[in-house]
């Protein structure tokens, strides 16, 4: 009965997902440690899936990278099953040239033991995607980060579906970091936009812990278009929501805390106009 097998597995999956939605922190999910955020995500990011993280502008790439690294660390926490495995990172040479190389002491400062990182430097976007696809099949990894520059030519819906399938089969979260790229249809489970956020000043007006303005652009089968302002807490390895009353909260350009935006059309696609121009391709 070749037809029934996928149907059965589909049914099982949907049942499993329904069960997950009820639990506080469901298995197979990566909770971010921010209750408001995890609630919208039904308990966290689906582990065995592809997630896209867009840098709002090229200059926000470091922030987007930091957020992606945070997610990877949440996914590979030692106290979990499959945690503590290596984190795989495929990076295009052009990203190194434009935004600087990954700096191991900096990774260490964000909470990732650099010895856990397996880095592949690829010449072009195609190589990055190939390396990522290869790694996404390896269940021993705790997360796969793929960082091409711009819009690599072979990356289309099929390629992203392939990545998503590989992630589903191996159970390894695949995080696709995108910079200087316009949004395109993809098989990603969630799509995020990250923007640098002014940190809470420390003594003597020193910059504080990394802070990000997150925008959930899209979530398959769930609510989307929300914004949060979070901080990365390296000591606890989790994200923390920025409190509303923090003494240095800036009001100039960032959105107020976690406000729902205008809901979008049912398919979850967003139109490029009506939002800031930062997403458009630069450079």
């Amino acid at each position, binding site marked *: 009965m070749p037809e029934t097998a996928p149907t059965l597995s589909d049914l099982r999956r949907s049942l499993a997902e329904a069960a997950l939605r009820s639990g506080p922190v469901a298995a197979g999910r990566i909770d971010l440690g921010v209750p408001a955020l995890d609630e919208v995500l039904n308990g966290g990011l689906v582990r065995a899936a592809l997630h896209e993280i867009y840098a709002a502008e090229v*200059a*926000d*790439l*470091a*922030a987007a*990278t*930091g*957020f992606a*690294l945070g997610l990877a660390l949440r996914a590979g926490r030692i106290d979990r099953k499959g945690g503590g*495995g*290596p984190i*795989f990172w495929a990076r295009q040479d052009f990203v190194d040239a434009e*935004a*600087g*190389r*990954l*700096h*191991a*002491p*900096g*990774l*260490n*400062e*964000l*909470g990732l033991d*650099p*010895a856990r*990182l*397996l*880095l*592949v*430097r*690829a010449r072009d976007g195609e*190589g990055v995607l*190939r390396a990522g696809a*290869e*790694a996404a099949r*390896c*269940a*021993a*990894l705790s997360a796969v980060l793929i960082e091409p520059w711009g819009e690599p030519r072979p990356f289309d819906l099929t390629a992203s579906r392939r990545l998503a399938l590989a992630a589903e089969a191996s159970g390894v979260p695949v995080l696709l970091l995108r910079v200087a790229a316009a949004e395109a249809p993809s098989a990603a489970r969630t799509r995020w936009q990250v*923007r*640098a*956020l*002014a*940190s809470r000043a*420390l003594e*003597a*007006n*020193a*910059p*504080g*812990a*990394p*802070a990000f*303005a997150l925008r959930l652009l899209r979530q398959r089968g769930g609510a989307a278009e929300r914004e949060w302002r979070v901080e*990365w807490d*390296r*000591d606890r390895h989790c994200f923390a929501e920025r409190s509303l009353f923090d003494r240095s909260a800036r009001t*100039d350009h960032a959105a107020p805390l976690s406000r729902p935006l205008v809901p979008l059309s049912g398919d979850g696609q967003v139109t490029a106009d009506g939002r800031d121009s930062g997403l458009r391709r630069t450079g």
Partner: protein
Amino acid sequence: MQGNALRLVDCDQRAVDLGLTRNMTLADARARIPDLVALEAQAQADREFLEALAGFCDRFTPLVALDDPHGLMLDITGCAHLFGGEAGLGNLAARAMQRGGLQLKAAIAGTPDAARACARHGRGGIVPPGQEEALLRFLPTAALDTDAETVIALSRAGLKTLAHLAERPSETLSARFGEALVVKLRRILGHEDRRITPLRPPPDCVVERHFAEPFADTASLEAVVVRLIGEAARVLEARGEGGRVFELGFFRSDGAVRRLAMETGRPSRDAKALLRLYRERIETLSDPLDPGFGFDAIKLAVPLCEPLDTPQHSLDGRAIEEEAVADLVDRLVTRFGRDRVLRFVAQDTHHPVRAAKALSAAAPLPEAAWSAPEPQEPPARPLQLFEPPQPVEAIAEVPDGPPIRFRWRRLTHDVARAEGPERIAPEWWRDGSDEPMRDYYRVEDAQGRRFWLYRIGFYEADSAPPRWFLHGLFA
């Protein structure tokens, strides 16, 4: 060119027939044959050709040595029966060389020196075991390959052939002409053996297939490779070893040899993983494997073996995971190259650029612990580092305040928060004493982006204004 005259280095058969010889001056030769075609000798090209030929002969035996000038030495111990005995092998080699337009004079004998003397100074052919002395004793003393003076001295003493020398007591010979001559004589006459030094070190394990008819289609090529890999894996398993390097040699019927190497990060004999590596290798070749008129032999050599215990199937999850990651690394290394699959290793230095080293993940890495970051403190080092640092224009408070505003990539950033300076002195023992001190600042601009900037020099009345650089980006 030897001495002050142009001389003939070598001449072809027709030139020999016309009475030209090696070492004749070019002027002399031209006088005899006015329309002589002379080409400049290219020692390097000759050498390369000979090495290519040695690669070709790799199909007969893994032990092939160069034998200057213009010679190759093959150790065919235990190989000849695969090619129809010594005579069969000799014929095969002669035919192959003829096809390539070469003339082959070959000899097979019990010791390398006997074979060499027989090929170069005798008639060539096969010297049956134990017959070296009987057959080679009438060779001229030039077969000893000593300098010309010794040969002249020997002939003056009336010693023209090896037999004359062999009849003398070796003590007097060595007293007069040196020990080397006596040793050489004993070796040519088969009293003493020596090992040749092969061009390519003999691999620990070799499996190969020879084909009666050359074939060119890719599918059967892979089928052969699959069988070879399986065979090598069985050999390695029986020995309790695993290979670190696997080298496939494709011998084309026209003599060209293509070699593909696959490396693994740890000893391996997993046929499936090896086949995956092979496919990866084939797929990423910049110039694809060209079968030409077909391959007539394929050889899988394992030049580097290491002990590998039989894997236990009840390993704990951690070991299996490590295995999976090592396999992944091997595949990535095969596709992207050693220097593109990296892991970071901590270095004991405060210099920001040298604090970490990215080493190839293909080799085992030194263990070095990273110091835990200071709790409750924001990151002190950037996530991304520019190398070299990027010059920026900055306005700062005098004398050592953080920048108030800076311009990077045509954009002006207004600094909202800043911390510093953190003074990092150069490592004079590496950089020399001229390297200036750097004052680093962590700054955040009005948009919330965080940067790592440094200043070289100070604001002083009598010196050049300081320069500012952007070195990294914080998350």
